[in-house]
């Protein structure tokens, strides 16, 4: 392909420019992909070299180290304790001790069964019991042996623990080696007092970060990895892990979800499509209408502005789930709206607001506008007030009409400032459980998609409400729900990365500053 110079490009008309850009985009794809693979390869090479360097360091440090360093390989913190660095030494020692105790009592067994997720769930024991003298009864008790859920969870925790110990052990080796160097140089070693002082002074950031990092690992990273692993098991209502063990099944669940020609993949495609349509409408309708309302209220000559704002903000004052449930009842087939219209003779049969698929889709978008506009109105009001008046004045002098002013000044400014918000709003609408579930529960049910997990998805079902239905239906299917969760993540992360990279807020950071 021949690339145009800047001058040649400027000579093109609007459509030629668009065509040229598209051509460039598609031509660049192979190169871009190859580049990514190349970078990935380089990453692996770097990783290999780093591992090699680590291995060499560990071996040479052991060979050349003093007996204290050598013993520190086995008894963590030995060198520190020898040098009276009590705090460091005890911490290392405790870490090792805790690890050994945990592995002996629990972790070892859990890790050993991690590959199979358990062998026997329960064992029945029949025995004779006498609670009334002379009356001997046969009783069947049950003893639980393995628990797949616990094995998966604690197995994962054990792997984390092993990794944490490996990192700590490496630090311990480094510390021992440094102490050898200090011994050789004759300099004094830092005491525990110095360590405490340092942790409260120049290392204070580390002290502060300990708890948050621990919290993130335990309550964010660990559950996410756990849920991802569930997608590779057969965890469902027939394999609860406690009374019936579950097992690894590899990529079987992904294959079921994504292979063509079965009901589940058809449902997934349809639901994904509607989820995207819903998110686009829910995000942009609120955005533009909210901005429009804010501009109307801010317009010079509009009286009692605060009253208009208050009226709109009232919808925020009422908890959203109450207003949504209320709306759901109000527009039901036998609700007040239909009842009133029938009684007044305006309609002769009830309008199926929620029971007709197309109408239900329109309704959820409209109701979402009603609950969403006030937020956008508040956000955009502040930003609109910050746009310098002189921009509009010069535009007027240049003869720009109201639409041109909006398209060339207001909108670019708004998109620049609210770009990241727009993106997060789009992603949160993909996962907007409340509005859909409280209004329609995902209905009206669509039997053509069959049932997944005992749940029959409906015309307004989005991925997140489908996931909820699948896990709470009478054939709860956690493994498929986990696959859906992963796919939602891929969609959200992919879109976020693409949009973020082309967003003016990130590409032209200095334009409006």
């Amino acid at each position, binding site marked *: 392909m021949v690339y145009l110079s800047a001058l040649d490009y400027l000579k093109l008309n609007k459509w030629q420019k668009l065509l040229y850009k598209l051509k460039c985009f598609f031509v660049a794809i192979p190169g871009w992909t190859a580049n990514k693979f190349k970078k990935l390869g380089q990453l692996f090479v770097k990783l290999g070299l780093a591992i090699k360097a680590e291995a060499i360091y560990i071996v040479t440090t052991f060979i050349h180290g003093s007996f204290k360093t050598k013993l520190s390989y086995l*008894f963590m913190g*030995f060198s520190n*304790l*020898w040098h009276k660095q009590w705090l460091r030494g005890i911490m290392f*020692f405790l870490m090792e*001790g805790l690890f*050994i*105790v945990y592995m*002996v*009592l629990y972790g070892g067994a859990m890790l050993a069964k991690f590959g199979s997720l358990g062998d026997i*769930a*329960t064992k*029945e*024991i029949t*025995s004779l*019991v006498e*609670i*009334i003298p002379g*009356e001997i*009864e*046969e*009783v*069947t*008790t*049950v*003893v*639980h042996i393995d628990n797949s859920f616990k094995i998966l969870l604690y197995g994962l925790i054990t792997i984390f623990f092993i990794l944490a110990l490996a990192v700590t052990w490496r630090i311990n080796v480094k510390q021992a080696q440094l102490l050898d160097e200090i011994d050789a140089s004759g300099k004094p070693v830092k005491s525990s007092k110095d360590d405490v002082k340092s942790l409260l002074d120049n290392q204070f950031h580390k002290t502060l970060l300990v708890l948050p990092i621990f919290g993130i690992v335990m309550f964010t990273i660990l559950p996410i990895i756990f849920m991802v692993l569930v997608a590779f098991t057969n965890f469902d*209502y*027939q394999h*609860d892990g*406690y*009374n*019936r063990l579950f097992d690894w099944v590899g990529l079987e669940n992904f294959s079921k979800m994504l292979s063509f020609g079965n009901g589940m993949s058809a449902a997934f495609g349809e639901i994904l499509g509607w989820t995207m349509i819903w998110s686009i409408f829910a995000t942009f309708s609120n955005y533009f209408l909210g901005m429009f309302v804010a501009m109307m209220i801010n317009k010079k000559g509009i009286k009692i502005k605060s009253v208009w704002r208050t009226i709109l903000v009232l919808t925020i004052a009422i908890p959203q789930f109450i207003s949504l449930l209320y709306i759901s009842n109000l527009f039901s*087939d*036998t*609700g*007040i*709206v*239909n*009842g*009133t219209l*029938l009684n007044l003779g305006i309609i002769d*049969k*009830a309008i*199926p607001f929620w*029971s*007709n698929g197309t109408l239900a889709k329109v309704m959820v978008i409209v109701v979402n506008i009603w609950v969403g506009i006030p937020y956008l109105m508040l956000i955009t009001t502040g930003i609109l007030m910050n746009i310098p008046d002189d921009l509009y004045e010069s535009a007027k002098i240049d003869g720009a009409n109201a639409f041109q002013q909006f398209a060339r000044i207001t909108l670019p400014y708004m998109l620049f400032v609210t770009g990241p918000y727009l993106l997060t709003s789009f992603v949160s609408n993909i996962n907007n459980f409340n509005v859909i579930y409280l209004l329609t529960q995902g209905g*009206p*049910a*669509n*039997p*053509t998609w*069959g*049932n997944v997990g*005992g749940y*029959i998805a409906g015309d307004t079902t989005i991925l997140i409400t489908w996931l909820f239905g699948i896990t709470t*239906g*009478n*054939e*709860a299917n956690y493994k498929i729900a986990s696959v859906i969760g992963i796919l939602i993540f891929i969609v959200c992360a992919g879109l976020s990365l693409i949009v973020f990279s082309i967003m003016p807020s990130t590409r032209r950071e200095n334009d409006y500053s």
Partner: protein
Amino acid sequence: MRKFISVLLGAALAAGSCVGLAACDGNSATNPQNGDVKKYDITVWAGDGTTTMMQNQVEKFNSTIGKELKVSFNAKVEQVSEGKAVGDAESHPESAADLFCFASDTFARAVEMNLVAKLSPSSVTFIDENNIKSAADASKMGDTYYAFPMTADNSYFLYYNKDKLKDTEVTDLETMIEVAEKQSAKISYNLGSEGSWYAASFFYGTGCKSEWVVNDSGKFTDMEDDFNSANGIKAFKGMAKLMSSECFNDSSKAQDFSSAIPSIAVVSGVWDYKTAKTILGDKLGVAPLPHFTVDGARYQATPYLGYKFMGIKPQSDKYKLLYLQRLAQYLTGEECQTQRLKDLGWGPSNLKSRETDEAKENEIFNVINDNPNVVQGQYPAKWWSQFEVACLAVKKGTENGKSLDDTALGNLLKTYAKDLATFLNG
């Protein structure tokens, strides 16, 4: 320094040993000492609005039979509806209640998932001697008994507004539809969304049957289902008559009597009696399910008759398990069932309770017992959802004046049968 390290290592080893020894203790059961009252902390799940009664009944047991047996239960009674109990126990099996009440349609699942304990011979004798045969039979899976019958009224019938419908009009669905359409009112019959339980009444009405064979461990091994037949198509046509009408409301809630577009008839069960009575007062009528006419033949919709059971969570302590069975015998015995009949209007399965004046004079209980019904067997979760898919397809195919011919209805039933055969064959 070395001394210090050796002390430290010694302390760590000692601590590890202590923890290890403590872990070796296990979960062994202990025999109650003669003379001592054995005390157990237990959790009980009772249905909506019955927790206080259940608490009092457990305390009554403690002060009477418990004293004789030298056992006392400190019961924490929580409200979990019978329809949800098995599902909740399945979600959190470890923290499930020691005693829980559940609906008979969830029984096979409870057994399959090991959520209920096998009963001892004395409990089996108690169940057989004190309950109607159908309830006693329903409380076993294969030849093994797992649950104590509590009620024999888990069925549905017609509540109607006497001001809007005459007694003579509730006998036929076609007449009811005509009256409702004239009044721009609704008939609530949950035949679509989550309505398999109610929709089956049309199939049993035309003579269809669906019976599943379950083994001792709750696994479905075989089925005899002729819903995919000419009678099945007739049942669908009967349903379609109501579904295609403007008066159809896919619901079974007594609250529908007070909607903005009110229902003049609601198909529901005993649990909705209080609500219906509160809304309609003396205008409330109770009747068996209506007849419907298809291809010139008249059939009566025939509901399920199910039971409520009390089950015991599998225990590792054999003494506790036996004492819990004694408690369950009391809670499902004559005294407690009669009290539930008097206070809650629940129809008893206990032979003596059924002979009381309260039982004989109970309008709802009589409607259930004096009219045709099908004793509810065990069905896999897949059956309920596949049947629901077929019923929803009829609902969708008949909305907005559309209609489905016999071939289309037959195809829906073929798909239903095919999906179930696939399920059964694994």
